[in-house]
Protein backbone atom coordinates (compact mmCIF):
# COMPACT_ATOMS: atom_id res chain seq x y z
CA UNK A 1 0.00 0.00 0.00
CA UNK A 2 1.55 3.28 -1.10
CA UNK A 3 0.90 6.63 0.50
CA UNK A 4 -1.46 7.78 -2.22
CA UNK A 5 -3.63 4.74 -2.69
CA UNK A 6 -6.79 5.46 -0.74
CA UNK A 7 -9.64 3.14 0.03
CA UNK A 8 -13.01 4.11 -1.49
CA UNK A 9 -14.20 5.21 1.97
CA UNK A 10 -11.21 7.48 2.38
CA UNK A 11 -11.75 9.04 -1.07
CA UNK A 12 -15.36 9.56 -0.15
CA UNK A 13 -14.33 11.47 2.99
CA UNK A 14 -12.00 13.73 0.97
CA UNK A 15 -14.64 14.36 -1.70
CA UNK A 16 -17.34 15.02 0.91
CA UNK A 17 -15.12 17.37 2.88
CA UNK A 18 -14.39 19.47 -0.21
CA UNK A 19 -18.08 19.54 -1.09
CA UNK A 20 -19.21 20.43 2.43
CA UNK A 21 -16.57 23.16 2.83
CA UNK A 22 -17.25 24.66 -0.61
CA UNK A 23 -21.01 24.74 -0.10
CA UNK A 24 -20.59 26.18 3.40
CA UNK A 25 -18.29 28.90 2.03
CA UNK A 26 -20.39 29.86 -1.00
CA UNK A 27 -23.78 29.68 0.74
CA UNK A 28 -22.73 31.83 3.68
CA UNK A 29 -20.98 34.45 1.52
CA UNK A 30 -23.99 36.66 0.63
CA UNK A 31 -25.23 36.60 4.23
CA UNK A 32 -21.70 37.22 5.46
CA UNK A 33 -21.27 40.27 3.22
CA UNK A 34 -24.67 41.65 4.24
CA UNK A 35 -24.00 41.21 7.97
CA UNK A 36 -20.47 42.60 7.63
CA UNK A 37 -21.84 45.67 5.84
CA UNK A 38 -24.51 46.20 8.50
CA UNK A 39 -21.92 45.99 11.27
CA UNK A 40 -19.43 48.20 9.45
CA UNK A 41 -21.68 50.91 8.04
CA UNK A 42 -24.97 51.11 9.90
CA UNK A 43 -26.06 52.09 13.39
CA UNK A 44 -29.21 50.36 14.53
CA UNK A 45 -30.89 49.09 17.66
CA UNK A 46 -29.57 45.65 18.58
CA UNK A 47 -26.29 45.99 16.71
CA UNK A 48 -24.27 44.73 19.68
CA UNK A 49 -26.64 41.79 19.99
CA UNK A 50 -26.20 40.88 16.31
CA UNK A 51 -22.46 41.21 16.69
CA UNK A 52 -22.57 38.92 19.74
CA UNK A 53 -24.70 36.29 18.05
CA UNK A 54 -22.42 36.26 15.00
CA UNK A 55 -19.38 35.71 17.19
CA UNK A 56 -20.94 33.11 19.50
CA UNK A 57 -19.76 30.08 17.49
CA UNK A 58 -16.21 31.41 17.83
CA UNK A 59 -16.30 31.43 21.62
CA UNK A 60 -18.72 28.60 22.47
CA UNK A 61 -17.53 24.98 22.62
CA UNK A 62 -18.23 23.53 19.13
CA UNK A 63 -20.17 20.68 20.74
CA UNK A 64 -22.58 23.24 22.19
CA UNK A 65 -23.06 24.85 18.78
CA UNK A 66 -23.68 21.42 17.27
CA UNK A 67 -26.18 20.52 19.96
CA UNK A 68 -28.03 23.82 19.50
CA UNK A 69 -28.17 23.13 15.76
CA UNK A 70 -29.58 19.68 16.50
CA UNK A 71 -32.22 21.20 18.78
CA UNK A 72 -33.33 23.82 16.21
CA UNK A 73 -32.60 22.20 12.85
CA UNK A 74 -33.18 18.59 13.90
CA UNK A 75 -36.28 16.82 12.49
CA UNK A 76 -38.14 17.66 15.71
CA UNK A 77 -36.67 21.12 16.12
CA UNK A 78 -38.78 24.23 15.35
CA UNK A 79 -36.93 25.22 12.19
CA UNK A 80 -36.01 21.68 11.17
CA UNK A 81 -39.60 20.40 11.31
CA UNK A 82 -40.81 23.45 9.39
CA UNK A 83 -38.23 23.00 6.63
CA UNK A 84 -38.89 19.26 6.52
CA UNK A 85 -42.35 20.04 5.09
CA UNK A 86 -40.57 21.35 2.01
CA UNK A 87 -38.24 18.37 1.87
CA UNK A 88 -35.27 20.32 3.26
CA UNK A 89 -33.64 18.12 5.86
CA UNK A 90 -30.37 18.90 7.64
CA UNK A 91 -30.17 16.30 10.39
CA UNK A 92 -27.74 13.47 9.59
CA UNK A 93 -27.30 14.67 6.01
CA UNK A 94 -24.29 16.21 4.29
CA UNK A 95 -26.30 19.42 4.05
CA UNK A 96 -26.37 19.47 7.85
CA UNK A 97 -22.57 19.13 7.86
CA UNK A 98 -22.41 22.12 5.50
CA UNK A 99 -24.73 24.10 7.77
CA UNK A 100 -22.62 23.29 10.83
CA UNK A 101 -19.45 24.28 8.97
CA UNK A 102 -21.04 27.50 7.69
CA UNK A 103 -22.14 28.49 11.20
CA UNK A 104 -18.68 27.76 12.60
CA UNK A 105 -16.89 29.61 9.82
CA UNK A 106 -19.32 32.54 9.73
CA UNK A 107 -17.70 34.72 12.43
CA UNK A 108 -14.30 34.42 10.76
CA UNK A 109 -15.76 35.35 7.39
CA UNK A 110 -17.74 38.31 8.77
CA UNK A 111 -14.72 39.65 10.69
CA UNK A 112 -12.49 39.65 7.62
CA UNK A 113 -15.10 41.28 5.36
CA UNK A 114 -16.16 43.79 7.99
CA UNK A 115 -12.59 45.00 8.50
CA UNK A 116 -12.24 45.34 4.76
CA UNK A 117 -15.48 47.34 4.39
CA UNK A 118 -14.44 49.61 7.25
CA UNK A 119 -11.21 50.31 5.38
CA UNK A 120 -13.11 51.54 2.30
CA UNK A 121 -12.92 55.33 2.17
CA UNK A 122 -16.45 56.64 2.76
CA UNK A 123 -15.43 59.74 0.80
CA UNK A 124 -15.30 57.58 -2.33
CA UNK A 125 -18.83 56.43 -1.57
CA UNK A 126 -19.92 60.06 -1.18
CA UNK A 127 -18.27 60.87 -4.53
CA UNK A 128 -20.18 58.00 -6.09
CA UNK A 129 -23.51 59.28 -4.78
CA UNK A 130 -22.87 62.79 -6.13
CA UNK A 131 -22.33 61.14 -9.52
CA UNK A 132 -25.83 59.69 -9.41
CA UNK A 133 -25.47 56.29 -7.75
CA UNK A 134 -28.12 55.35 -5.19
CA UNK A 135 -27.18 53.37 -2.06
CA UNK A 136 -27.40 50.00 -3.81
CA UNK A 137 -25.30 51.11 -6.77
CA UNK A 138 -22.75 52.72 -4.46
CA UNK A 139 -22.40 49.37 -2.73
CA UNK A 140 -22.06 47.30 -5.89
CA UNK A 141 -19.85 49.68 -7.89
CA UNK A 142 -17.60 51.10 -5.17
CA UNK A 143 -17.79 49.37 -1.78
CA UNK A 144 -17.88 45.78 -3.03
CA UNK A 145 -15.04 46.01 -5.59
CA UNK A 146 -12.83 47.67 -2.99
CA UNK A 147 -13.69 44.95 -0.46
CA UNK A 148 -12.63 42.03 -2.65
CA UNK A 149 -9.33 41.31 -0.84
CA UNK A 150 -11.26 41.04 2.44
CA UNK A 151 -13.91 38.87 0.82
CA UNK A 152 -11.25 36.48 -0.48
CA UNK A 153 -9.64 36.34 2.95
CA UNK A 154 -13.02 35.73 4.59
CA UNK A 155 -13.91 32.96 2.12
CA UNK A 156 -10.62 31.17 2.67
CA UNK A 157 -10.88 31.44 6.45
CA UNK A 158 -14.40 30.02 6.26
CA UNK A 159 -13.27 27.24 3.92
CA UNK A 160 -10.33 26.31 6.16
CA UNK A 161 -12.53 26.33 9.24
CA UNK A 162 -15.04 24.11 7.43
CA UNK A 163 -12.33 21.66 6.35
CA UNK A 164 -11.28 21.26 9.96
CA UNK A 165 -14.67 21.43 11.67
CA UNK A 166 -15.21 18.49 14.00
CA UNK A 167 -17.18 19.13 17.20
CA UNK A 168 -20.31 20.79 15.83
CA UNK A 169 -20.44 18.46 12.81
CA UNK A 170 -20.20 15.21 14.73
CA UNK A 171 -22.75 16.42 17.31
CA UNK A 172 -25.27 17.65 14.73
CA UNK A 173 -25.01 15.14 11.88
CA UNK A 174 -22.95 12.32 13.44
CA UNK A 175 -20.26 10.43 11.54
CA UNK A 176 -21.92 8.46 8.75
CA UNK A 177 -19.49 7.23 6.07
CA UNK A 178 -20.53 8.48 2.65
CA UNK A 179 -23.02 11.00 4.05
CA UNK A 180 -21.54 13.05 6.87
CA UNK A 181 -18.08 11.59 7.41
CA UNK A 182 -15.68 14.43 6.56
CA UNK A 183 -11.88 14.38 6.75
CA UNK A 184 -11.60 15.19 10.48
CA UNK A 185 -14.25 12.68 11.53
CA UNK A 186 -12.75 10.06 9.20
CA UNK A 187 -9.31 10.62 10.74
CA UNK A 188 -10.83 10.39 14.20
CA UNK A 189 -12.56 7.10 13.29
CA UNK A 190 -9.38 5.64 11.82
CA UNK A 191 -7.41 6.43 14.97
CA UNK A 192 -10.01 4.55 17.00
CA UNK A 193 -9.64 1.23 15.12
CA UNK A 194 -6.64 -1.16 15.17
CA UNK A 195 -4.50 -0.79 12.02
CA UNK A 196 -6.06 2.52 11.09
CA UNK A 197 -2.87 4.53 11.63
CA UNK A 198 -1.72 4.36 8.00
CA UNK A 199 -5.09 5.63 6.74
CA UNK A 200 -5.18 8.39 9.35
CA UNK A 201 -1.71 9.49 8.30
CA UNK A 202 -2.66 9.60 4.61
CA UNK A 203 -5.79 11.66 5.32
CA UNK A 204 -3.74 13.94 7.56
CA UNK A 205 -1.29 14.55 4.71
CA UNK A 206 -4.17 15.28 2.33
CA UNK A 207 -5.72 17.62 4.87
CA UNK A 208 -2.48 19.57 5.17
CA UNK A 209 -2.11 19.72 1.38
CA UNK A 210 -5.62 21.08 0.89
CA UNK A 211 -5.18 23.70 3.60
CA UNK A 212 -1.85 24.84 2.20
CA UNK A 213 -3.27 24.91 -1.32
CA UNK A 214 -6.23 27.02 -0.22
CA UNK A 215 -3.93 29.43 1.57
CA UNK A 216 -1.68 29.74 -1.47
CA UNK A 217 -4.56 30.40 -3.85
CA UNK A 218 -6.01 33.02 -1.54
CA UNK A 219 -2.61 34.73 -1.27
CA UNK A 220 -2.33 34.94 -5.05
CA UNK A 221 -5.91 36.13 -5.53
CA UNK A 222 -5.66 38.67 -2.73
CA UNK A 223 -2.39 40.07 -4.04
CA UNK A 224 -3.90 40.48 -7.49
CA UNK A 225 -6.99 42.16 -6.05
CA UNK A 226 -4.93 44.52 -3.92
CA UNK A 227 -2.78 45.48 -6.91
CA UNK A 228 -5.87 46.20 -8.92
CA UNK A 229 -7.44 48.54 -6.40
CA UNK A 230 -4.35 50.10 -4.84
CA UNK A 231 -4.76 53.86 -4.80
Amino acid sequence: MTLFSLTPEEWEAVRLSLKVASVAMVASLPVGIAVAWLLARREFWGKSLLNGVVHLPLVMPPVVTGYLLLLTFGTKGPIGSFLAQFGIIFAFRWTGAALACAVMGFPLMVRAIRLSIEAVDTRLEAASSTLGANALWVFFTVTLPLTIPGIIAGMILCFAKAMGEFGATITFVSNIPGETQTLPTAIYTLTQVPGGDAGALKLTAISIAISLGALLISEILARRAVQRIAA
Partner: protein
Amino acid sequence: MSLSVAVRHRLGSLDLDVAFESAGGITAVFGASGCGKTSLVNVIAGLIRPNFARISVGDTVLVDTEHGIFMPAHRRRIGYVFQEARLFPHLTVEGNLAYGEWFTPKSQRYAARGPILELLGIGNLLKRRPRDLSGGEKQRVAIGRALLASPRLLLMDEPLASLDASRKAEIMPYLERLRDEVKIPIVYVSHSVAEVLRLASDVAVLAQGKLAAFGPAAEIAQRLDLVPAEEREEGGAIIDMKVASHDAEFGLTRLASAAGDIHVPGRIGPEGTPARVRIRARDVMLALAEPTHISALNVLRGTVAAISPADAYSVNVRLDCGGAAVVARITRHSAAALKLAPGTPAFAVVKAVSVSGPAAEPR
Protein backbone atom coordinates in the same frame (compact mmCIF):
# COMPACT_ATOMS: atom_id res chain seq x y z
CA MET B 1 -28.85 79.52 -14.89
CA SER B 2 -29.31 81.07 -11.50
CA LEU B 3 -28.40 79.66 -8.13
CA SER B 4 -30.17 80.51 -4.93
CA VAL B 5 -28.81 79.36 -1.58
CA ALA B 6 -30.10 79.86 1.95
CA VAL B 7 -28.74 77.59 4.66
CA ARG B 8 -28.86 77.51 8.44
CA HIS B 9 -27.20 74.54 10.02
CA ARG B 10 -25.43 73.79 13.28
CA LEU B 11 -22.39 71.56 12.96
CA GLY B 12 -20.37 71.00 16.13
CA SER B 13 -19.34 74.44 17.34
CA LEU B 14 -19.99 76.06 13.96
CA ASP B 15 -23.22 77.89 13.24
CA LEU B 16 -23.59 78.01 9.50
CA ASP B 17 -25.90 80.81 8.35
CA VAL B 18 -25.47 81.77 4.72
CA ALA B 19 -27.74 83.10 2.00
CA PHE B 20 -26.91 84.39 -1.45
CA GLU B 21 -28.23 84.49 -5.00
CA SER B 22 -26.11 84.27 -8.08
CA ALA B 23 -27.16 84.83 -11.67
CA GLY B 24 -24.62 82.26 -12.90
CA GLY B 25 -20.93 82.13 -13.64
CA ILE B 26 -18.46 81.26 -10.92
CA THR B 27 -19.51 82.09 -7.39
CA ALA B 28 -16.45 81.87 -5.19
CA VAL B 29 -16.94 80.94 -1.56
CA PHE B 30 -13.99 82.47 0.18
CA GLY B 31 -12.83 82.30 3.76
CA ALA B 32 -10.25 80.97 6.20
CA SER B 33 -10.04 77.28 7.12
CA GLY B 34 -12.86 76.16 9.39
CA CYS B 35 -15.25 78.95 8.42
CA GLY B 36 -17.77 76.46 7.05
CA LYS B 37 -16.98 76.55 3.32
CA THR B 38 -16.88 72.78 2.86
CA SER B 39 -19.95 72.27 5.04
CA LEU B 40 -21.83 74.73 2.87
CA VAL B 41 -20.99 72.88 -0.36
CA ASN B 42 -21.78 69.55 1.30
CA VAL B 43 -25.23 70.90 2.11
CA ILE B 44 -25.64 72.01 -1.51
CA ALA B 45 -24.48 68.59 -2.72
CA GLY B 46 -26.91 66.79 -0.40
CA LEU B 47 -24.20 65.05 1.62
CA ILE B 48 -25.36 66.87 4.76
CA ARG B 49 -29.02 67.10 5.75
CA PRO B 50 -29.37 70.68 7.02
CA ASN B 51 -31.56 71.99 9.86
CA PHE B 52 -32.90 74.64 7.51
CA ALA B 53 -32.22 75.21 3.84
CA ARG B 54 -33.72 76.44 0.61
CA ILE B 55 -31.52 75.78 -2.37
CA SER B 56 -32.52 75.92 -5.99
CA VAL B 57 -30.74 75.84 -9.33
CA GLY B 58 -32.80 77.48 -12.07
CA ASP B 59 -36.32 76.10 -11.55
CA THR B 60 -35.18 72.98 -9.72
CA VAL B 61 -35.59 72.98 -5.95
CA LEU B 62 -32.89 70.77 -4.42
CA VAL B 63 -33.93 71.23 -0.83
CA ASP B 64 -36.64 73.20 0.91
CA THR B 65 -36.91 72.15 4.52
CA GLU B 66 -39.98 74.29 5.12
CA HIS B 67 -41.89 72.33 2.51
CA GLY B 68 -40.31 69.01 3.39
CA ILE B 69 -38.38 68.73 0.14
CA PHE B 70 -35.03 66.99 0.28
CA MET B 71 -33.67 65.62 -2.96
CA PRO B 72 -31.11 62.89 -2.17
CA ALA B 73 -27.55 63.49 -3.35
CA HIS B 74 -27.69 60.92 -6.16
CA ARG B 75 -30.68 62.64 -7.77
CA ARG B 76 -29.37 66.22 -7.60
CA ARG B 77 -27.07 65.95 -10.62
CA ILE B 78 -24.46 68.15 -9.06
CA GLY B 79 -20.90 67.76 -10.25
CA TYR B 80 -18.67 67.80 -7.18
CA VAL B 81 -14.92 68.18 -7.59
CA PHE B 82 -13.32 67.35 -4.27
CA GLN B 83 -10.07 68.67 -2.90
CA GLU B 84 -8.49 65.21 -3.09
CA ALA B 85 -9.89 64.19 -6.52
CA ARG B 86 -11.47 61.00 -5.07
CA LEU B 87 -11.04 58.99 -8.26
CA PHE B 88 -12.16 55.38 -7.98
CA PRO B 89 -8.93 53.36 -7.61
CA HIS B 90 -10.45 50.19 -9.06
CA LEU B 91 -11.39 51.86 -12.35
CA THR B 92 -9.25 53.25 -15.15
CA VAL B 93 -9.45 56.92 -16.07
CA GLU B 94 -11.94 55.92 -18.76
CA GLY B 95 -14.01 53.99 -16.22
CA ASN B 96 -14.00 56.95 -13.86
CA LEU B 97 -15.13 59.28 -16.64
CA ALA B 98 -17.88 56.89 -17.75
CA TYR B 99 -19.15 56.43 -14.19
CA GLY B 100 -21.23 59.57 -13.83
CA GLU B 101 -22.18 59.58 -17.50
CA TRP B 102 -23.74 56.15 -17.03
CA PHE B 103 -25.98 57.23 -14.16
CA THR B 104 -27.31 60.27 -16.00
CA PRO B 105 -30.57 59.61 -17.85
CA LYS B 106 -30.02 59.84 -21.63
CA SER B 107 -32.54 62.67 -21.97
CA GLN B 108 -30.58 64.78 -19.47
CA ARG B 109 -27.13 64.32 -20.96
CA TYR B 110 -25.67 67.40 -22.55
CA ALA B 111 -21.95 66.86 -21.96
CA ALA B 112 -20.08 65.41 -24.91
CA ARG B 113 -16.96 63.45 -24.20
CA GLY B 114 -14.76 64.72 -27.03
CA PRO B 115 -14.86 68.43 -26.21
CA ILE B 116 -14.45 67.79 -22.47
CA LEU B 117 -11.40 65.55 -22.98
CA GLU B 118 -10.00 68.26 -25.21
CA LEU B 119 -10.88 71.08 -22.81
CA LEU B 120 -9.08 69.33 -19.96
CA GLY B 121 -6.29 67.77 -21.99
CA ILE B 122 -6.89 64.25 -20.64
CA GLY B 123 -7.56 62.34 -23.86
CA ASN B 124 -4.22 60.57 -23.66
CA LEU B 125 -4.77 59.32 -20.08
CA LEU B 126 -7.83 57.12 -20.67
CA LYS B 127 -6.14 53.74 -20.20
CA ARG B 128 -4.20 54.79 -17.10
CA ARG B 129 -5.04 53.97 -13.49
CA PRO B 130 -5.58 56.81 -11.01
CA ARG B 131 -2.47 55.77 -9.06
CA ASP B 132 -0.32 56.38 -12.16
CA LEU B 133 -1.48 60.00 -12.53
CA SER B 134 0.18 63.13 -11.18
CA GLY B 135 -1.77 65.33 -8.77
CA GLY B 136 -2.67 67.78 -11.52
CA GLU B 137 -3.79 65.02 -13.88
CA LYS B 138 -5.94 63.44 -11.16
CA GLN B 139 -7.66 66.75 -10.54
CA ARG B 140 -8.30 67.28 -14.26
CA VAL B 141 -9.79 63.79 -14.55
CA ALA B 142 -11.95 64.52 -11.49
CA ILE B 143 -13.23 67.69 -13.17
CA GLY B 144 -13.91 65.70 -16.34
CA ARG B 145 -15.77 63.02 -14.40
CA ALA B 146 -17.97 65.66 -12.75
CA LEU B 147 -18.67 67.42 -16.06
CA LEU B 148 -19.50 64.23 -17.95
CA ALA B 149 -22.35 63.57 -15.53
CA SER B 150 -24.00 66.61 -17.24
CA PRO B 151 -24.53 68.39 -13.92
CA ARG B 152 -26.91 71.27 -13.25
CA LEU B 153 -24.32 72.86 -11.02
CA LEU B 154 -20.62 72.33 -10.50
CA LEU B 155 -19.17 72.42 -6.99
CA MET B 156 -15.42 72.74 -6.66
CA ASP B 157 -14.03 72.43 -3.15
CA GLU B 158 -10.50 73.83 -3.17
CA PRO B 159 -9.59 71.82 -6.27
CA LEU B 160 -6.08 73.27 -6.28
CA ALA B 161 -5.32 73.24 -2.57
CA SER B 162 -3.49 69.91 -2.60
CA LEU B 163 -1.28 70.89 -5.53
CA ASP B 164 2.06 72.65 -5.60
CA ALA B 165 2.49 76.00 -7.33
CA SER B 166 3.53 74.62 -10.72
CA ARG B 167 0.57 72.19 -10.80
CA LYS B 168 -1.75 75.02 -9.88
CA ALA B 169 -0.38 77.03 -12.77
CA GLU B 170 -0.93 73.97 -14.98
CA ILE B 171 -4.64 73.68 -14.08
CA MET B 172 -5.60 77.34 -13.86
CA PRO B 173 -5.94 77.82 -17.64
CA TYR B 174 -8.30 74.83 -17.78
CA LEU B 175 -10.45 76.40 -15.08
CA GLU B 176 -10.57 79.68 -16.99
CA ARG B 177 -11.66 77.89 -20.14
CA LEU B 178 -14.21 75.99 -18.08
CA ARG B 179 -15.66 79.24 -16.76
CA ASP B 180 -15.93 80.68 -20.25
CA GLU B 181 -17.23 77.57 -22.02
CA VAL B 182 -19.45 75.76 -19.53
CA LYS B 183 -22.82 77.38 -19.16
CA ILE B 184 -23.75 76.00 -15.73
CA PRO B 185 -23.28 77.84 -12.45
CA ILE B 186 -20.10 76.94 -10.60
CA VAL B 187 -19.51 77.25 -6.86
CA TYR B 188 -15.80 77.50 -6.26
CA VAL B 189 -14.51 77.15 -2.70
CA SER B 190 -11.12 78.58 -1.96
CA HIS B 191 -9.04 80.32 0.64
CA SER B 192 -6.70 81.75 -1.97
CA VAL B 193 -7.27 85.38 -2.93
CA ALA B 194 -5.34 84.91 -6.15
CA GLU B 195 -7.56 82.01 -7.32
CA VAL B 196 -10.80 83.69 -6.32
CA LEU B 197 -10.02 87.01 -7.97
CA ARG B 198 -8.77 85.34 -11.11
CA LEU B 199 -11.83 83.14 -11.60
CA ALA B 200 -14.91 84.39 -9.81
CA SER B 201 -17.77 86.49 -11.10
CA ASP B 202 -19.34 86.74 -7.64
CA VAL B 203 -17.67 86.27 -4.28
CA ALA B 204 -19.24 85.16 -1.01
CA VAL B 205 -16.93 85.84 1.90
CA LEU B 206 -17.49 83.56 4.89
CA ALA B 207 -16.30 84.19 8.43
CA GLN B 208 -17.16 81.80 11.27
CA GLY B 209 -20.06 80.35 9.34
CA LYS B 210 -21.61 83.74 8.54
CA LEU B 211 -21.72 85.62 5.28
CA ALA B 212 -19.35 88.58 5.80
CA ALA B 213 -19.84 89.99 2.32
CA PHE B 214 -21.32 89.04 -1.02
CA GLY B 215 -21.07 90.80 -4.35
CA PRO B 216 -19.45 90.97 -7.78
CA ALA B 217 -15.78 90.00 -7.70
CA ALA B 218 -14.69 93.46 -8.87
CA GLU B 219 -16.38 95.05 -5.84
CA ILE B 220 -15.20 92.50 -3.30
CA ALA B 221 -11.66 92.73 -4.68
CA GLN B 222 -11.38 96.34 -3.47
CA ARG B 223 -12.53 95.45 0.02
CA LEU B 224 -9.03 94.82 1.29
CA ASP B 225 -10.44 94.61 4.83
CA LEU B 226 -12.06 91.28 3.89
CA VAL B 227 -8.78 89.73 2.86
CA PRO B 228 -6.95 87.82 5.61
CA ALA B 229 -3.83 89.64 6.82
CA GLU B 230 -1.39 87.08 5.43
CA GLU B 231 -2.83 87.48 1.94
CA ARG B 232 -3.46 91.23 2.00
CA GLU B 233 -0.59 91.73 -0.43
CA GLU B 234 -2.69 89.87 -3.03
CA GLY B 235 -5.62 92.27 -2.74
CA GLY B 236 -6.39 94.95 -5.26
CA ALA B 237 -8.55 95.54 -8.28
CA ILE B 238 -9.76 93.26 -11.04
CA ILE B 239 -10.84 94.59 -14.41
CA ASP B 240 -12.58 92.53 -17.07
CA MET B 241 -11.07 93.47 -20.42
CA LYS B 242 -10.80 92.18 -23.97
CA VAL B 243 -7.77 91.42 -26.09
CA ALA B 244 -7.27 94.41 -28.46
CA SER B 245 -4.03 93.69 -30.24
CA HIS B 246 -0.74 91.81 -30.07
CA ASP B 247 2.75 93.18 -30.29
CA ALA B 248 4.71 90.40 -31.90
CA GLU B 249 8.06 92.14 -31.74
CA PHE B 250 8.08 92.53 -27.95
CA GLY B 251 5.69 89.69 -27.17
CA LEU B 252 3.05 91.85 -25.50
CA THR B 253 -0.72 91.79 -25.56
CA ARG B 254 -2.74 94.99 -25.38
CA LEU B 255 -6.01 94.67 -23.48
CA ALA B 256 -8.73 97.27 -23.72
CA SER B 257 -11.63 98.33 -21.51
CA ALA B 258 -13.45 101.48 -20.50
CA ALA B 259 -10.70 102.05 -17.96
CA GLY B 260 -8.10 102.38 -20.69
CA ASP B 261 -5.50 100.09 -22.20
CA ILE B 262 -3.33 97.70 -20.27
CA HIS B 263 -0.33 95.86 -21.67
CA VAL B 264 0.55 92.44 -20.32
CA PRO B 265 3.50 90.25 -21.22
CA GLY B 266 2.92 87.21 -23.43
CA ARG B 267 0.44 86.45 -26.14
CA ILE B 268 -3.15 85.92 -24.98
CA GLY B 269 -5.85 84.50 -27.22
CA PRO B 270 -7.16 86.07 -30.45
CA GLU B 271 -8.58 89.57 -30.60
CA GLY B 272 -11.78 89.95 -28.59
CA THR B 273 -10.95 87.19 -26.10
CA PRO B 274 -12.23 88.13 -22.65
CA ALA B 275 -9.34 88.63 -20.27
CA ARG B 276 -9.45 89.52 -16.62
CA VAL B 277 -6.51 91.31 -15.10
CA ARG B 278 -5.73 91.66 -11.44
CA ILE B 279 -3.76 94.68 -10.29
CA ARG B 280 -2.47 94.37 -6.74
CA ALA B 281 -2.91 97.54 -4.71
CA ARG B 282 0.72 97.51 -3.64
CA ASP B 283 1.88 97.49 -7.28
CA VAL B 284 0.08 100.72 -8.22
CA MET B 285 1.84 104.09 -8.21
CA LEU B 286 -0.13 107.37 -8.33
CA ALA B 287 0.82 110.57 -10.17
CA LEU B 288 -0.97 113.90 -10.41
CA ALA B 289 0.36 114.71 -13.90
CA GLU B 290 0.60 112.24 -16.76
CA PRO B 291 4.05 110.74 -16.37
CA THR B 292 6.34 110.56 -19.38
CA HIS B 293 9.72 108.95 -19.90
CA ILE B 294 9.00 106.08 -17.55
CA SER B 295 9.43 102.37 -18.12
CA ALA B 296 5.96 101.43 -16.87
CA LEU B 297 3.72 100.72 -19.86
CA ASN B 298 0.35 101.19 -18.24
CA VAL B 299 -0.95 104.60 -17.25
CA LEU B 300 -4.65 104.84 -16.42
CA ARG B 301 -6.41 108.16 -16.07
CA GLY B 302 -9.00 108.53 -13.31
CA THR B 303 -10.23 110.45 -10.31
CA VAL B 304 -9.87 109.59 -6.65
CA ALA B 305 -13.12 108.03 -5.43
CA ALA B 306 -12.27 107.14 -1.84
CA ILE B 307 -9.38 106.96 0.56
CA SER B 308 -9.41 104.47 3.41
CA PRO B 309 -6.75 103.65 5.99
CA ALA B 310 -4.90 100.37 5.37
CA ASP B 311 -2.63 100.29 8.41
CA ALA B 312 -0.74 102.73 10.60
CA TYR B 313 1.48 103.93 7.73
CA SER B 314 -0.50 103.50 4.55
CA VAL B 315 -3.84 104.17 2.92
CA ASN B 316 -5.79 102.54 0.10
CA VAL B 317 -6.76 104.99 -2.59
CA ARG B 318 -9.56 103.92 -4.89
CA LEU B 319 -9.36 105.50 -8.29
CA ASP B 320 -12.35 105.55 -10.61
CA CYS B 321 -11.05 104.95 -14.13
CA GLY B 322 -13.90 105.16 -16.62
CA GLY B 323 -16.21 103.09 -14.42
CA ALA B 324 -13.64 100.51 -13.39
CA ALA B 325 -11.86 100.80 -10.07
CA VAL B 326 -8.14 100.61 -9.46
CA VAL B 327 -6.85 100.51 -5.91
CA ALA B 328 -3.46 101.90 -4.94
CA ARG B 329 -1.77 101.26 -1.61
CA ILE B 330 0.43 104.27 -0.87
CA THR B 331 1.94 105.70 2.29
CA ARG B 332 0.02 108.23 4.33
CA HIS B 333 2.97 110.51 3.67
CA SER B 334 2.48 110.35 -0.11
CA ALA B 335 -1.26 110.83 0.16
CA ALA B 336 -0.68 113.99 2.18
CA ALA B 337 2.12 115.25 -0.10
CA LEU B 338 -0.11 114.87 -3.18
CA LYS B 339 -3.07 116.37 -1.29
CA LEU B 340 -5.25 113.51 -2.47
CA ALA B 341 -8.96 113.79 -1.76
CA PRO B 342 -12.08 112.42 -3.39
CA GLY B 343 -12.43 114.12 -6.77
CA THR B 344 -8.71 114.71 -7.34
CA PRO B 345 -7.76 113.73 -10.91
CA ALA B 346 -4.83 111.30 -10.86
CA PHE B 347 -2.98 108.75 -12.95
CA ALA B 348 -2.42 105.14 -11.90
CA VAL B 349 0.90 103.73 -13.06
CA VAL B 350 1.29 99.95 -13.30
CA LYS B 351 4.20 97.99 -14.70
CA ALA B 352 3.16 95.45 -17.33
CA VAL B 353 5.07 92.69 -15.54
CA SER B 354 3.19 93.18 -12.27
CA VAL B 355 -0.26 92.75 -13.85
CA SER B 356 -1.70 89.25 -13.34
CA GLY B 357 -3.55 88.35 -16.49
CA PRO B 358 -4.84 85.11 -17.93
CA ALA B 359 -2.23 82.49 -18.71
CA ALA B 360 -0.30 83.40 -21.82
CA GLU B 361 -0.02 80.90 -24.64
CA PRO B 362 3.15 78.81 -24.54
CA ARG B 363 5.83 80.34 -26.78
